[in-house]
């Protein structure tokens, strides 16, 4: 069998070389000749950043379009000292409400046109246009205007001063070309041909999109921030993780940025040509309690309106065990509503411990006893039972829900798990039709994301459990408005402490993302907020070239 296999592979290889007519080796020298093949479990939606909503489209957009400036390695979003220039080379606050940005003189679109302040103001208008419905639109709410003083100078005016003023102006928008898109009506912009054949300003230029199969980018060797370390990037699209992973294991791809469960990680670890690279996730998972009765929202929830019951349930869940069982220990139990991608993350911050004895005592004090001996606590004839809503699309959440169910059963709490398809799950959560919901939130590096779920204002959006505490609201507001880093840090600390004391949710885990990467690459780094943004600095040393590194235009 082995001989047959070898013969077939050799003959296939010979056939390929005979038929190929590929570029002879040696036409590219140096360590920027590599090709990276990214295997993705879904296809990009559109390559126009204000319209793109899928992970893959956003990741590719990060290589085609630059921001004005980027956060530094510590992902700090407050102030402006730690930011790294991209299209803007310098900046200055002329007063607390006015920021002046100076653009690089050598920044070019891939068609050769210079990047100007007019592109920036046009991009701002597009992101703010309600017809575009850009995800980032709300992040730009406190910017009153962006105006071009001249070709290289942009003046940003704010409605008030706050800690993340600079971050909001430079981070959320990927600058798009006015000279190409200005004449396109806004209601047709997302569907314009540009979104499938973009002209960018980033380290890679668009080459080709083969629908359902792949997108190819090639390096812009004259890129103004330095020559990219790779010559070519090919994104291959599969319908699911299984096929995407098989491509990686069969050496037909080089990278998967998110491997998923421990089984997939183990398979990659066992492959000689691959390595597992870990990086923090920007997502945290939680079980939120509903404060209102789902059958009559005008009434408090019969169980979870009581803070002591919420605390008892939280104490009864052994989160390190859940983390170990579900993610193989790759991740953290978060101290509150945050992921390690937030600069306010602190490893030393105390966590709510696992203490089932204390949970029992609290429940007994609140009158919950097993009076009929059926193993479930009851009070006034009502059992201590609730429904936990979970989505079928998330394996970690489904597994964790089973473990939570068993852990709570041991102290006499009955949990009924309801699994729903993702859109149905979101719809039911948004309609507050649950006792407890297994949610996830992330994609953010700003602590402002805490207020997007755990403030009173968020009851209309992602605060599915209807949690509300005016003290927390005030602390969040003050933290967001603080103008110096230390004040902001202290206020965030107080806000997180107050939220955790209220126990509106169990902060279950935040995973460490595991990526599978071919071993021939040097300089591999992956960012939690935009994993692909640093791809242009990866390299393949010439002595490690793979066959696919030798094919190039």
């Amino acid at each position: 069998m082995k001989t047959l296999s070898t013969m077939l592979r050799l003959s296939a290889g010979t056939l390929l070389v005979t038929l190929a007519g590929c570029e002879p080796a040696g036409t590219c020298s140096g360590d920027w000749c590599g090709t990276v093949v990214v295997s993705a479990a879904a296809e990009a939606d559109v390559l126009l950043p204000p319209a793109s909503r899928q992970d893959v489209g956003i990741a590719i957009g990060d290589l085609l379009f630059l921001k004005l400036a980027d956060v530094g390695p510590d992902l700090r979003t407050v102030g402006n000292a730690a930011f790294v220039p991209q299209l803007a080379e310098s900046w200055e606050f002329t007063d607390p409400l006015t920021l002046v940005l100076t653009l690089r003189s050598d920044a070019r679109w891939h068609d050769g046109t210079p990047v100007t302040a007019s592109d920036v103001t046009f991009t701002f208008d597009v992101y703010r246009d309600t017809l575009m419905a850009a995800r980032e639109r709300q992040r730009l709410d406190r910017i009153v205007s962006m105006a071009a003083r001249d070709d290289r100078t942009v003046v940003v005016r704010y409605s008030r001063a706050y800690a993340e003023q600079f971050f909001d102006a430079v981070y959320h928008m990927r600058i798009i070309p006015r000279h190409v898109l200005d004449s396109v009506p806004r209601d047709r912009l997302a569907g314009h041909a540009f979104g499938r054949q973009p002209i960018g300003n980033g380290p890679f230029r668009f080459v080709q999109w083969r629908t359902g199969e792949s997108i190819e980018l090639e390096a812009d060797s004259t890129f103004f921030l330095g020559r990219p370390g790779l010559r070519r990037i090919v994104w291959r699209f599969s319908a699911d993780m299984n096929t995407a992973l098989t491509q990686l294991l069969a050496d037909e791809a080089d990278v998967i940025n998110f491997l998923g469960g421990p089984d997939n990680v183990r398979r990659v670890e066992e492959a000689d040509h691959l390595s597992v690279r870990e990086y923090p996730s920007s997502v945290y998972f939680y079980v939120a309690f509903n404060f209102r009765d789902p059958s009559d929202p005008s009434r408090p929830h019969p169980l979870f309106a009581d803070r002591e019951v919420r605390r008892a349930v939280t104490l009864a869940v052994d989160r390190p065990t859940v983390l170990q069982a579900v993610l193989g220990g790759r991740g953290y139990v978060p101290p509150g509503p945050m992921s390690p991608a937030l600069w306010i993350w602190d490893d030393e911050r105390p966590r709510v411990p696992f203490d089932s004895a204390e949970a029992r005592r609290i429940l007994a004090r609140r009158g919950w006893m097993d009076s009929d001996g059926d193993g479930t606590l009851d009070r006034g004839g009502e059992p201590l039972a609730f429904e936990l809503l979970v989505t079928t699309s998330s394996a970690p959440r489904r597994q964790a829900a089973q473990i939570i169910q068993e852990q709570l059963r041991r102290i006499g709490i009955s949990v009924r798990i309801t699994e729903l398809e993702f859109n149905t799950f979101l719809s039911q959560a948004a309609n507050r039709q649950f006792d407890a919901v297994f949610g996830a939130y992330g994609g953010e590096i700003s602590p402002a994301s805490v207020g997007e779920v755990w403030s009173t204002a968020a009851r209309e959006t992602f605060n599915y459990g209807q949690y509300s505490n005016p003290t927390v609201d005030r602390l969040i507001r003050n933290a967001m408005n603080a103008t110096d880093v230390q004040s902001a840090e202290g206020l965030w600390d107080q806000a997180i402490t107050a939220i955790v004391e209220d126990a509106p949710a169990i902060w279950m885990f935040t995973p460490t993302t595991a990526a599978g990467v071919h071993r021939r690459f040097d300089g591999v780094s992956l960012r939690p907020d935009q994993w692909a943004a640093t791809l242009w600095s990866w390299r393949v040393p010439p002595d490690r070239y793979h066959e696919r590194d030798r094919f190039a235009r």
Partner: protein
Amino acid sequence: MARFVAVRIAQAAAIVFLVATLTFVLIHLAPGSPFMAGGEGLVVPPEIVEQQERNFGLDQPLPVQYLRYLSNVVRGDFGYSFAAHRPVREAFLERVPNTLLLAGAALIVMFLVGTLVGALQSARPASKTDDVLSLVTLGLYSTPVFWLGLMLLLVFGESLQWFPVGGTHDAVVYPYLTALGKVGNRLHHLVLPAVALGLVGAAVTARYQRAAMLEVIRQDFMRTAKAKGLTERIVLFRHALRNALLPTVTLFGLAFPVLLSGAVLVESVFAWPGLGRLAVDAVHQRDYAVVTGAAIVTAVMVVLGSLLADLLYRVVDPRTREAA
């Protein structure tokens, strides 16, 4: 003949209308909005969801949306894909040829392998070869097509690496291949998905073919052929197989819908960019226009396939024309 075709086309139109209506109603009844979800942990603010719904007219009452949708479909306009930001027709024009290529290749596998295996079994009925092949065909007949696809992928793609594991061609080397190389590269990629999709059907064909062959072998003209001193191979393939192929032709009409539904699974397993995979992705994303459009196009392909099979049968079997 013309009347027969006209009646069948009228029936086909009614079926397509029903499919279009049912799909529209079902996908719109499903809870959730197409614009709610991003990825794990990435949820979209409600005001953005509402704005998107207004942009695409989803804030209108359902009957209004339905009438607009029907009038567009009649004019050949399947609408706009929310997820891909492009007209659905454009996506279909790229995807349908891939699905037809895969289904066509699978059809060849199905009939070629099935007919040969059936003929081989009937040449030595109740022999060991017949028993083993019966067992194999029965096993394949009972095998879910996606499982077979996964196994082929793992064994011949990942472990042995004899065949590529996905796509219609190698995205890295393809642009640099000669014309002949490109054809070879595409064929190499076609083998596993076509075999996965066609093999289960081949098992069905083999069982039909075996039964038909055994029926024909008992006929008087077969005895005559043998008495003339013809070799067994000529008797079997020229006389018996030709006559026994007639019932197999009826399978063509049945096979096409089966192949198209199987293609949905095989395309997902092998990352084959066809209509089936597009439809599966669209269902997950609540991409209404793509889901309803895919259902209509598939229904049209199925009824056309069935019509073609009926016409083919009338061509090869004169008795059906006389009966009509």
